[in-house]
Each structure stands twice: as structure tokens, then as C-alpha cells.
């Protein structure tokens, strides 16, 4: 029992950023991550990029999952990435994006530092598998 407790747990921040009130998907992901044995911090709705950065840094998360269904990803995600960089957290945080993100925007987000984008229809197992394989080893 105790040896399991001492094992490292993958910490994730599931974040809703900007003016976007749809959090059903974020809840589903948070719950699935929990059941996968991850420690999930949920940001709550309507967070600014600065708040997400603050939470990601203070909580020292391995994975930051950003859920955006508002279409403002090209504005908000780079702000978050810049913020992470400011605290020296960009390189060893696995940043994922989910929600409604058009194909033509994906390349730009990846250039900004987003590791993977999971759009509608992605199976939750695929996401969990990706996190397990790519969560930074510290």
C-alpha cells in the first residue's frame, strides 16, 4: 500500500480559458484522468491566461490541458505559453489543447509549443495513453 503512495503521480491541470462556458468536456476529461490514476486540478470556468499560468506554476503540473471552444485559441494559447516561459516552466510542461480547433490553426499552435491537439471525436483512451507516454520525466 505505502509503496504505491510513494510512487510519483502524474499531475494535470485541466484549464478552461477565456469567455467560454462549455465545461462538459473538461469535466469528462478530468474524471477520466482521475480514473486513470492522475491527480487532476480543475481550474474552473472563465480563467485568464495569467491565472492558468499561475496555477500551472504553483501546482507544478506535468501536464496542462487547455480546453477551448470559443475560437480564441490563437490569442489565448500563446499568452499561456509566454507566461510559462517567464517562470521557466515551458520546457517541461506537456501542453495539450482540446475543443473546437480548426485544422488550419493546428500548425500554429504546435509551433507555439502545444504538444498535441485533441479535437471532437478523440477517444479518451487515446488522450490518456498520450499523457502516459509523454508526461515529462523530471
Amino acid at each position, binding site marked *: 500500500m*505505502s509503496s504505491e503512495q510513494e510512487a510519483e503521480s502524474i499531475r494535470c491541470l485541466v484549464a478552461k480559458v477565456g469567455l467560454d462556458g462549455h465545461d462538459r468536456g473538461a469535466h469528462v476529461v478530468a474524471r477520466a484522468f482521475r480514473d486513470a490514476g492522475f491527480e487532476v486540478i*480543475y481550474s474552473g470556468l472563465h480563467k485568464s491566461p495569467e491565472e492558468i499560468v*499561475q496555477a500551472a506554476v504553483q501546482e507544478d503540473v506535468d501536464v496542462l490541458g487547455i480546453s477551448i471552444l470559443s475560437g480564441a485559441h490563437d490569442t489565448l494559447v500563446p499568452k499561456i505559453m509566454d507566461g510559462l516561459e517567464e517562470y521557466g516552466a515551458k520546457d517541461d510542461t506537456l501542453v495539450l489543447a482540446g475543443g473546437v480547433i480548426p485544422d488550419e490553426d493546428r500548425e500554429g499552435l504546435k509551433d507555439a509549443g502545444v504538444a498535441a491537439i485533441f479535437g471532437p471525436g478523440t477517444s479518451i483512451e487515446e488522450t490518456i495513453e498520450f499523457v502516459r507516454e509523454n508526461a515529462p520525466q523530471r
Partner: protein
Amino acid sequence: MTMDADDESLLEDLLAGKHRALARTISKIENRSPGYRDLVSELYAHTGDADVIGITGSPGAGKSTLVDKLAETYRDRGETVGVIAIDPSSPFTGGAVLGDRIRMASTVGDMDVFVRSMSARGTLGGLSTATADAVKAMDAFGKDKIIIETVGAGQNEIDIVRTADTVAVLVPPGSGDDIQTLKAGILEIADVFVVNKADRDGADRTVQELRDMVQLGDESGAAGGGGHHSQEVIDAHDDWDGETDADGDEAEDWTPPIVETVATKGTGVETFIDELANHRAYLVESGTRAEKVRQRYAEEIRTLLREDVHALLEDELDASGGINGLADAVRRGETDPYSIANDVLAPVEACVENLETEPDEDGSSRE
């Protein structure tokens, strides 16, 4: 103790006030990463300045919301704040959803409020085993006030006493009848009672029941002997509000005040903070603080030793064929858990007996 170069620079950054270093240190502590003990051991020299406040109470009592308002008020007074919020972990997968942060909305954007969510990682008693060490990290970082919010599991959530200087127990209105207040456990540990959601029906009654309980405690405990006061006598003290000390010789004792708050609106938070400060002053003046700190370190030493012995035993278990094999033997009716415990421990006991003449060198030098 010695640290490797990475930990050395981590410690340096933490003491220099870099947030990421504090975050990383707490992760190391939580994960029991290699070298974390040496790191925590180095932190001790820089601790002792922070006030540690514990907030406990049943789920949904309003702990997170009150902590948020506390942090905000302390910030307004120019003090830096660290918050450790603990949520339960799943007994099946070890996973957790840590949701306390959502309520901490008043202080976002203010990096001088450092909020860290922790999962209980399987421990009972409302705190994670890493909590006390995480408090040390925040203390060394230079936080003036450190607020610990417990899981909120229920009646036996008393670990917080061993970690916090001052414990506030939140009791929402309608938490059961007066028999609940007689029970042992969570209500015994309060230095300050907070009746949160005081704008709801039943708040007055809850305050009254707590007041009665505090008075009963004074009667039986502080007055010495006790028992000779019947309930009628206590009831006759209508004017007795629990805060005035009738007998002068009881100045040494602390009577938990009862504060009414409405955390969502911030009502009563100033009064709450004043009572926390009063308790702090009492601890210092009465010398109770020294006693508490001594007990805390004693407990920490015990816990560390227990962990070490535990690790030793795991090795012994592996040497005896692993826990699963042994458990299977019990299932097949070949032996029983007591015999196995004896057998596994035998070589350890033999070793200890041989060593018994040597003095214990590490136990008492820390304080």
C-alpha cells in the same frame, strides 16, 4: 547532510523567492523523490517564522471559500500567504480531482498567494503525509501565514492538530443535534469555532449548541473535579457567554471563541482573523506554543522513524517471498497472519537486540 548539485540550486532558488523552485520542492516532497529528505532537512534552518493555521470541517462547510477570503484579507494587510488545500484521492486508482483552487478566486493574479493543491494519497486523518514538509517549504520560502485546508472527511479528521498552530473548525448550521457536540474527535480540536453560512436558518441554534458544549468543557475540565455541576446549574448561567473567565486562576486556559461568518460575502472574516491572532498571542504568552512545537517535532521524528522501519520491513517481506505469497499461504490455511508477522520480524528483532547497547544518536538532537 549532503545534497546533490540540483537540490543545492533548488534550495538556493527557493530561498531567493522563486515560485517555481517552491513548487518543485513541494513536488519532490510529495513524490518522496530521491534526496527529498536532505532537502527538507536543510529547510529547517530557515523555518519558524510563519503562522500555521488549519481549517477543517465537513465537506461543503465552506472551507475553501473561507480560506480564499482569509488569504485576501491577509494580503490587504500586507502579509504573504501560502495555502495548502488537500482533497481526497481515490482508494482504487490513486487518482484525484483537486477542486479547492476554483474557490480561491479573490487572489488570482497575485503570486504572493501561493496555492498548492495536494491529494491525500491514501492517508486518513485529513492530511497527506507530505503536508508537514510542504509547510516547512512554504515557511522557508518566507510566507507569513500558511493556511492548511483539510480533506473535510468527517469526525476523525484530527491530524491537523499536529501540524497547525491554530485550528479552526467550521460547523455549518444544521450539523446535527447537541449530542453531536458531545462526541470525541473533530470538535475537540478547535481553537476557534466558525459557524459559516451564518445567514442560514438554524445558525443561531448551532452557535448556542457550540456555546453549551464549550461551557460543559470548562465546567468539567478547567474547574477541576467537575461532575458536581448539573445541567441545571449550567443552564442557570444565562449571562455566561463563554468568553469571560469567572475564575481568575484560569487565565492559562483558552476557551475557543465562536465566530459567525458568511464566507461568500466576506462577513465576519475580520473577526475571525482577530480571533486567530488572539489565539496566537495566547500560545506565545502561555508558553503553549513551545510545548506544541516540541510535540510536533516529537511526532515528526516518530513518523520518520516509522517510515524507515516500514521500508526495512518491506525488504524483509520481499526476502520472505513477498506479501502475495504469504497472503496466499494464509488463504490456503497453511498459516496465519500473526505467525507470519512474527517470522518476518524475527531477523529484525535479532539485529536490534544485538545493537541495543549502542546509544541512539539521532533521536533527540533535532530540537
